């Protein structure tokens, strides 16, 4: 994990297409080259990502726990004060494991943006909402949908959603939620599966919310460390993520619903679901790699084989996304870019103004920065997996080093597709 020693000389050079990247990983580096510019870009974008993410996780939990099965959830993005003030489990004074040294409630920049929006005017919430001058929860929901839809990547969690226990838990919550509402209860009696499917979807809301609750303080802390001059290389940034992944790995993933004063445990903590296995790894697979062919300005013809037959071959995630044509990277990712645009640190704005078309194509520039930064996060996941499942980078046993290399090569094989941007991010000119 934190090893940065050179590759043991016992292994011959890799013959992989991306041999350079393999060697870098074997030396404890990231898929993203270690340059000051890369570091600046990824840290800056982590910060810009963390602020909307602070809203995403709060609202995802708000929807999963409070809005629940509201048949007309028109106001599900109008998060309650309680959830804005909710203490992040990994930030603030009360945190048992404090990742970010900042406060645990909603980030001040987020609060300011929610009040005034891009227009800088204090208008009624509804107007901001309708004008789309707000945090775009649609992106978060698209990520959730990707996790829900690619159910094969989260087998344990998914299997539980079909157990009698889960159905019984849901049943109690549904009955409590619609108490005194004969219409909905009648519908439930007629179409129980429809309601259960909605609850399953909400369980994924909770899942993703709990996942991002961790990532937001991680990114905030990285940004602070960078500003303080304590994070100076790309591998350091990656190692911070690796350590974070391990430290939080055992966090429970659960789904609680609050109806009235009562808490209904749809997925209890005692089920033993963990952050690493039931949230983080499926998230990376579903969102970074697979997602779905978004209906952007690029259309796909499934009959012509432009969309793989097999879900596991999908490759529409940020690691493959063509950020250039706005929208063909998918409308939801474009919404994320719009969200991040509001919270860019000054040094990134300055950097973007000096390149390409400056102000005009900042959305694309930051999208590509985001792509770089997510290659770094994926590197952290790959290194964490190597650390958890394989061997140290300085292992004296050459067989172990061989196993490590096989693992790295197998991971990097996924970027041999022509759509993958691994090659592009090696160049600083890709903006």
């Amino acid at each position: 994990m934190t090893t940065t020693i050179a590759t043991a000389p016992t292994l011959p050079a890799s013959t992989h297409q991306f041999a350079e990247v393999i060697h870098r990983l074997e030396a404890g580096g990231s898929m993203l080259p270690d340059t000051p510019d890369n570091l600046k870009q990824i840290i800056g974008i982590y910060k810009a990502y963390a602020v909307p993410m602070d809203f995403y996780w709060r609202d995802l939990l708000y929807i999963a726990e409070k809005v629940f099965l509201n048949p007309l959830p028109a106001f599900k993005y109008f998060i309650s004060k309680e959830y804005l003030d909710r203490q992040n489990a990994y930030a603030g004074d009360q945190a048992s494991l404090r990742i970010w040294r900042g406060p645990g409630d909603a980030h001040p920049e987020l609060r300011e943006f929610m009040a005034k929006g891009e227009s800088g005017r204090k208008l009624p919430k509804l107007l901001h909402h309708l004008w789309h001058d707000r945090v775009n929860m649609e992106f978060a929901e698209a990520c959730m949908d990707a996790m829900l839809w690619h159910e094969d990547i989260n087998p344990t969690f998914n299997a539980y959603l079909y157990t009698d226990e889960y159905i019984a838990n849901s049943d109690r919550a549904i009955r409590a939620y619609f108490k005194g509402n004969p219409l909905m209860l009648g519908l439930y009696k007629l179409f129980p599966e429809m309601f259960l499917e909605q609850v399953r979807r909400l369980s994924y809301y909770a899942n993703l919310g709990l996942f991002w609750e961790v990532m937001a303080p991680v990114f905030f802390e990285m940004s602070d460390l960078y500003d303080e001059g304590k994070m100076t290389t790309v591998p350091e940034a990656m190692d911070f993520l690796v350590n974070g992944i391990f430290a939080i790995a055992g966090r429970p993933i659960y789904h609680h619903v609050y109806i009235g004063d009562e808490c209904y445990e749809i997925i209890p903590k005692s089920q033993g679901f963990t952050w690493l296995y039931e949230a983080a790894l499926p998230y990376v697979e579903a969102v970074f790699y697979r997602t779905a062919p978004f209906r952007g300005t690029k259309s796909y013809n499934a009959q012509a084989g432009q969309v793989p037959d097999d879900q596991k071959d999908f490759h529409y995630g940020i690691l493959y996304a063509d950020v250039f044509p706005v929208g063909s990277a998918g409308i939801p990712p474009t919404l994320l870019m719009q969200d991040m645009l509001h919270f860019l640190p000054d040094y990134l704005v300055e950097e973007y103004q000096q390149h390409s078309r400056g102000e005009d194509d900042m959305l694309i520039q930051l999208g590509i920065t985001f792509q770089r930064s997510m290659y770094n996060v994926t590197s952290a996941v790959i290194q964490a997996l190597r650390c958890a499942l394989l061997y140290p980078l300085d292992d004296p046993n050459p067989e172990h080093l061989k196993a490590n290399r096989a693992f790295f090569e197998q991971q990097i094989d996924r970027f041999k597709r022509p759509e993958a941007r691994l090659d592009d991010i090696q160049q600083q000119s890709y903006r």
Partner: protein
Amino acid sequence: MPNIVEIAVSTEGFSTLVAAVQAAGLVEALSGEGPLTVFAPTDDAFAKLPPGTVQTLVDNPPQLARILKYHVVAGRWAQSDIAKEESLPSLESSPIPVRVNSAFEVKNATVVAADIEATNGIIHVIDNVILMG
């Protein structure tokens, strides 16, 4: 002859494991009839995990229990039995890949002391905490 838990408690170098088993509430299960095969990571093995990893798990017993169950296999599997297998089904339900060649390896851990007999099973001491996946 002592049972699995008693051996762990009385042997030096397993304090983390013992504490973890206690926190996860698995003492009873591991003291029961069995028979069970336990891959017991040493304190050094736990120390290799990045900081905070164990603490978060100890704070969340069900999650900890799940990781610990991955180190336990139903039945009494001596090294000679394991040599014939490629993987064993753990109590967590994920399989544990095993290799017995020049060294006795369990996933990415190496067995440093094999075949420690207990009344209700058998213990192999390993130098790494093994994780599912």
